[in-house]
């Protein structure tokens, strides 16, 4: 099992008090953790890549734990999402390797969250920005928790790197008021409602 070569990690925490409406008692927190790692498949076509998902599992778990801790602990987390930026010598398919280790790590540390983890990915150079989608951790249809967080690394990913991102939020959009399924109405059986 190859060791994951991490060049840098970036944690960003946003505390949102208002967005022009009434300030909230408890500020909404949104957090992102991005790890810039070496892409072992950069520069050539490799058919068998799926084994790298297992290699990424410990990194996914560590990132999920650290991000939840930075946001006040797993109990505080209500929304999540994930994303990948693959450096220019890599393939979009390499970004797909993050689905299992990134997603299941968050679901595990959040106590078996039910909803699919919203995600996005792209190939790009250093400074590429990625809008990581966010949905409720137990029911994808909770409208108040549809959100997104923009991430990016000024000097990454280099051509032979990948930036792997996890995003978590502690609540609904700051002034959510467009109806739909509410977090209080979640049944939590099928991950959707």
């Amino acid at each position: 099992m190859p060791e994951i070569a991490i060049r840098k990690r970036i944690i960003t925490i946003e505390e949102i008090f208002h967005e022009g409406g009434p300030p909230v008692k408890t500020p909404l927190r949104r957090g992102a953790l991005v790890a810039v790692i070496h892409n072992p498949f950069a520069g050539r076509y490799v058919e068998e890549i799926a084994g790298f998902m297992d290699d990424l599992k410990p990194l996914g778990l560590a990132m999920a734990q650290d991000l939840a801790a930075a946001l006040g602990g797993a109990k505080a987390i209500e929304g999540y999402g994930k994303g990948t930026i693959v450096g220019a010598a890599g393939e979009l398919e390499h970004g797909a390797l993050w689905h299992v280790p990134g997603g299941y790590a968050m679901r595990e540390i959040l106590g078996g969250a039910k909803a699919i983890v919203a995600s996005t990915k792209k190939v790009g150079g250093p400074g590429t920005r990625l809008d990581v989608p966010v949905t409720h951790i137990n029911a994808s249809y909770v409208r108040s928790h549809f959100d997104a967080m923009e991430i990016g690394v000024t000097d990454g990913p280099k051509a032979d790197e990948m930036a792997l991102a996890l995003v978590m939020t502690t609540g609904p959009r700051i002034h959510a008021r467009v109806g739909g399924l509410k977090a209080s109405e979640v049944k939590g059986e099928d991950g959707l409602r």
Partner: protein
Amino acid sequence: MKAKIRKIVTTVEETRTEMGQVVDPPVRRAVSIAVIENPFAGRYVEDLQELIDIGEELGGLLAQYAVNAIGIEGSRAESYGKAAAVGENGELEHAAAILHPKLGTPVRKVLGKGAALIPSSKKRGGPGVTLDIPLGHKDAAYVRSHFDGMEVRISDAPRANEIMVAVAVTDSGRPLPRVGGLTKDQIKGDDGLR
């Protein structure tokens, strides 16, 4: 508090390897940015005292957020910098009022010392504008290993009537410094320069 804060964004960057070399201990740089309402947006106001006072409030708050994010005592911080971006209805002078007269003293209080000038940059721009915050050693501006910079950006700020105010703090210099000059173990720390 005089400042009307919409959000605070804090980022910590930890560099563990550079060009295949292990960076041990990792270089950690943190920045905390407040997005505030600009009380003078859209009109010319001669006396900028309110922004000067806001700068004083934010200096201590943001420096504390930044050292907390790295997880160190303020006294272990090695370099610092500050910057502001004014939304389109404001004036560059508004950034100067926040950054220069009073922001530094509370930052230095959080960090224990800070004999050196706090390097700064400022600009006017729209949401998503990037700020390159210059960094320098907090006790001796000539320490060459600590000349650095940190780029920050908030996708939805500053709006036209807002100002972004940033304070950056590090626990070390560049990852693999090797261009000579004054080193941190040679600091006298009397004049803020050497």
